[in-house]
């Protein structure tokens, strides 16, 4: 069997092994490749920096589970750090069942108390609300009717000063949503943006990006953070390098591997095609 035929019938385990090596090597020994700043990262940074004003109320929503953490967690951490530096009220809520679990992990890395934020006064965690889009629509109509108690202390919402002025979507100035699927941006847009005009910025996994771009082009979505690489650029802009910056070399090498395999696969295909003729 010729080398090219062998390449075409390559054991997939060798490709998996190569994938591991191309990821592990730059993590163990960082290459320090440059991280150019894209428009997506700049738009996200500028929006949070310039459009979020003191006194605003921001919904911070982690619409993903543990499987989305590798890609979305670094941008969630970085954005949380960014908005905690501002004098805003933060309402944490999720419509994904594993959302509270992810937020507990986030709080382990970014403690609002370190930024002088007091629970119940400056921020509150409403936890998980089941019901997908119906629940998102219900929360827009009334926070108090949709969520009885907060997630952290299990007390009625009316007992927290922060909720005195937050009754419905009309009292919210921005939604920051990080998501892997449904419910996600389309549901937020339908129930909060179109119905109440609440601006929204979305961080999403790479798979979802082609579906999100029409919303950016139409102006329905104010900013988009697509995937791990842009997340790394945002960390650079914030001057707070985290897991995304640490992993961006591995993104480059792993993509290089995919490109190489596609090229080799195509060469092998066309060369063996000639042999068959």
């Amino acid at each position, binding site marked *: 069997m010729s080398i090219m035929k062998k390449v075409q019938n390559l054991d997939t385990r060798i490709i998996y092994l190569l994938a591991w090596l191309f990821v592990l090597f730059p993590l163990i020994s960082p290459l320090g490749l440059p991280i150019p700043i894209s428009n997506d990262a700049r738009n996200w940074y500028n929006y949070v920096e310039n459009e979020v004003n003191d006194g605003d109320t921001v919904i911070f929503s982690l619409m993903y589970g543990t499987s989305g953490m590798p890609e979305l967690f670094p941008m969630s951490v970085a954005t949380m750090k960014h908005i905690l530096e501002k004098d805003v009220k933060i309402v944490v809520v999720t419509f994904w069942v594993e959302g509270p679990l992810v937020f507990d992990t986030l709080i382990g890395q970014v403690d609002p108390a370190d930024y002088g934020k007091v629970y119940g006064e400056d921020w509150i965690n409403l936890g998980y609300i089941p019901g997908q889009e119906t629940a998102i629509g219900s929360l827009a109509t009334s926070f108090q009717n949709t969520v009885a108690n907060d997630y952290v202390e299990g007390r009625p919402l009316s007992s927290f000063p922060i909720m005195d002025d937050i009754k419905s979507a009309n009292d919210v100035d921005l939604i920051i949503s990080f998501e892997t699927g449904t419910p996600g941006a389309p549901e937020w847009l339908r*129930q909060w943006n179109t119905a109440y005009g609440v601006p929204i910025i979305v961080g999403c996994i790479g798979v979802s990006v082609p579906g999100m771009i029409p919303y950016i082009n139409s102006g329905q979505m104010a900013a988009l953070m697509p995937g*791990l690489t842009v997340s790394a650029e945002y960390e650079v802009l914030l001057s707070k390098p985290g897991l995304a910056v640490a992993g961006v070399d591995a993104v480059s090498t792993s993509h290089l591997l995919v490109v190489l395999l596609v090229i080799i696969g195509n060469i092998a295909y066309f060369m063996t095609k000639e042999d068959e003729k």
Partner: protein
Amino acid sequence: MVDLIPIWLCVFFTLGIYSILYRENPWFRIAESVYLGTAVGYAVSQDLLYIRNQWSGQWSQSAGMMLLFALTMVVGLMWYARFNKSTFYLYRWPLAIIVGTGIGVALKTVIFTQFLDQIIAQANTPFFVAGDLMGTINNILIQIMVPSVLLYFWFTGTTRDSAPMKVVEKIARYTMMAGFGSAYGYTILTRYSLLIGRSQYLLGIPPNPPEAKLAFIVIAFVMLASMIGYDMFMKKKTPEE
């Protein structure tokens, strides 16, 4: 010492799941089953927490509300009627309520969010963007490609077979191929991000716990040795039989 248990478990289950890349094996089966069980258990606990909070927070306030709450519980329990043939028909009630409310809630704005606003944005896209060559090219492509793809899915009438439509179809096919290629590229990014994220944990890169590194080496060695060792043993045994 007790603090190390979650770290070792985390490493074990990560490698257990990835062990499927070698082949189907008991490590993967253990990790898969435990993950599924834990995920379902966690989801049920969160749902029950929400129901309990709703009860204590507002629905236990008056007799009328308590009655309504009890009614919703009965409707909720009807989901489980699907597991028995004789009660299967009851399952259609909660299904109808969920589907009906879901569609109703979405429909009130879907026409604006995903239809009219997109058409308006398309119509407002200028062909020429002053001082931005790439923006201009981008907009011209959008103005050509979007209508082409829409026309590609126009199946009625005889004009579909006309010469201009053949050109439109070709543009539409290239547009869709570019779209699928873009989606594939982003999918690669997502899948590799997953591997990178877990690798960062396995290597104990901060803020992940550094103890994970030792667990990674030990557990990876045990798993690989057991699988490769078993395969070699079976290979040796087979010719003798």
